[in-house]
């Protein structure tokens, strides 16, 4: 089982004799979890700063400019210090246990989902045949965290936010899953490394979205559903600040509040990466093709692949920010109409079309 773990394969031959096997496994687990936590922290720091900068430039402002010198790069760190040093408040009427538990459930589910994400073609925490299925399963747990936060706060705003979240996620999980079926149909595997390897042809540009027009259509639907899943504008109804104060976040403050935002940015990155893997090439790009051709599949190729993936994930986050600061928020009935009446049938149509296209391609060749 542990052969699938790249760290285990690397560490096992170097382990001294007196260390038992479970010691190696434990070390690998600790290192892996540390890497995931570092990724989440880094994304949250960079994400909050980028969100401010992107929103500012879209609105013809500068955003943070002073902290740290260069374009206010240390603003997120300063925010973090402020949030940690704030008083940790729990309302008197709240359900204390669930109030404290919900940020952990949210963040834990994102950590679990991130563990299924390969970082490079030969560096992953598990060669999981069900990679993307596992990510979808664990990111559906975040709903429970949001509902728990909203209900435990014992406040009307929070409860409304939680109800909207529940309704919205149930509506958008269908187009999310169904539109993902189209690329899965073409590539024939849930495994993210294998899916990426299947897109290495045409000089690293054999991306699934370019191989089949219906997959390109499905990618748009998938991205819209991802926006709704991650509660980003124009689907940020659970926290709609102009209507519900801050929705399910109303009663949270200090470090607990910031945990919610760590989860949000991590989930954004995770879903952008899933979009990249199954629609837009995963690790593959002309750059990784060149690295493969000139250096083989050694360290250079792995690093280039990791950077490609990070760039694609960051671009996905940038798209989400761009949309957030461009589009107005939908009403809840418009959100429901869009999910059930338009996205679901369109996603089904894309799956059908992708299947027929593949069948014709198979018959012609």
């Amino acid at each position: 089982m542990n052969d699938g773990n790249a760290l285990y394969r690397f560490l096992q031959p170097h382990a001294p004799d007196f260390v038992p096997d479970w010691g190696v496994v434990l070390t690998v687990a600790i290192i892996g979890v540390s890497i995931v936590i570092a990724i989440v922290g880094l994304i949250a720091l960079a994400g909050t700063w980028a969100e401010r900068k992107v929103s500012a430039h879209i609105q013809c402002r500068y955003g943070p400019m002073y902290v740290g010198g260069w374009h206010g790069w240390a603003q997120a760190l300063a925010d973090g210090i402020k949030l940690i040093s704030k008083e940790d408040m729990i309302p008197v009427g709240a359900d204390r246990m669930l109030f404290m538990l919900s940020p952990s459930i949210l963040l834990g589910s994102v950590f679990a989902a991130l563990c299924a994400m390969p970082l490079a073609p030969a560096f992953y925490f598990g060669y999981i045949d069900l990679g993307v299925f596992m990510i979808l399963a664990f990111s559906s747990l975040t709903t429970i965290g949001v509902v728990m936060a909203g209900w435990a706060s014992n406040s009307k705003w929070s409860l409304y936010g939680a109800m909207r979240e529940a309704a919205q996620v149930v509506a958008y999980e269908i187009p999310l899953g169904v539109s993902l079926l189209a690329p899965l149909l073409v590539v024939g595997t849930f495994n993210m490394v294998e899916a990426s390897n299947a897109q290495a042809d045409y000089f690293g540009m054999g991306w699934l979205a370019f191989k089949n027009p219906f997959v390109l259509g499905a990618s748009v639907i998938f991205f819209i559903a991802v926006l709704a899943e991650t509660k980003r504008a124009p689907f940020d109804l659970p926290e709609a600040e102009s209507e519900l104060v801050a929705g399910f976040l109303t009663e949270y403050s200090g470090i607990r509040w910031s945990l919610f935002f760590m989860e949000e940015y991590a989930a954004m990155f995770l879903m952008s990466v899933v979009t990249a893997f199954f629609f837009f090439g995963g690790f593959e790009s002309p750059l990784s093709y060149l690295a493969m051709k000139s250096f083989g599949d050694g360290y250079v190729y792995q690093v280039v692949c990791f950077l490609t993936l990070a760039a694609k994930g960051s671009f996905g986050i940038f798209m989400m920010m761009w949309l957030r600061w461009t589009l107005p928020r939908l009403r809840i009935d418009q959100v429901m109409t869009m999910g059930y009446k338009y996205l679901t049938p369109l996603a089904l149509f894309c799956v059908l079309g992708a299947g027929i296209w593949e069948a014709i391609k198979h018959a012609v060749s």
Partner: protein
Amino acid sequence: MDLRKQQIAFYTALLFGALAAMGWGLKTAGIQGAMFGFFASFTLGGGLMCIWERSVVRSAFSLMATFCGVAGLFILLGHDFLAMAQILIYVGGILVLILFGVMLTPPDLNERQLPRVGLGVVAVVGALAFVGAKVAAVVNWAQAETLPPAETKAEQIGAAFLRADGYVIAFELAAVLLTVALVAAVYIARRKPSDLIDLTEEGGY
């Protein structure tokens, strides 16, 4: 004993029960046994919390522990697809729907009356003894070495569903049944235009 002390006593007992189960598992079957103890106590503990908790929403949330524990047991058995489907469908779908239904009740711990603990214990123990005796009389316990290698890959499940000699007809029929049920539910739930006329000032739109 007031409510708070009861809660603390209950959760402490649950924690020690879980630790005992894990220790026993570790002693009998190593790491795998400990994991089994962990997931089993998750499953059973979630169920017990579901009965014990006085707030109906807390009961619903404790079902999450039960579902996740069952998913963990599936993983221990080597059925990773089932485990992930368990989390995706039960926690991400069904539990959210249950919560949607019960969420509007207030977080007030005194809302449900104290369960009659003695009667409950008698009922549970009686039922368990009855079922246990029946099961023990019938079941031929499988030994570890007689178990077939349990590895269900997503590929095998897909092939079994879609091959002509597999379960393709049952699969398609289930799909049709679910679609019919969905459409019927929407048809029953939706308002007719004639119902809407009274709701608007202008007399309909």
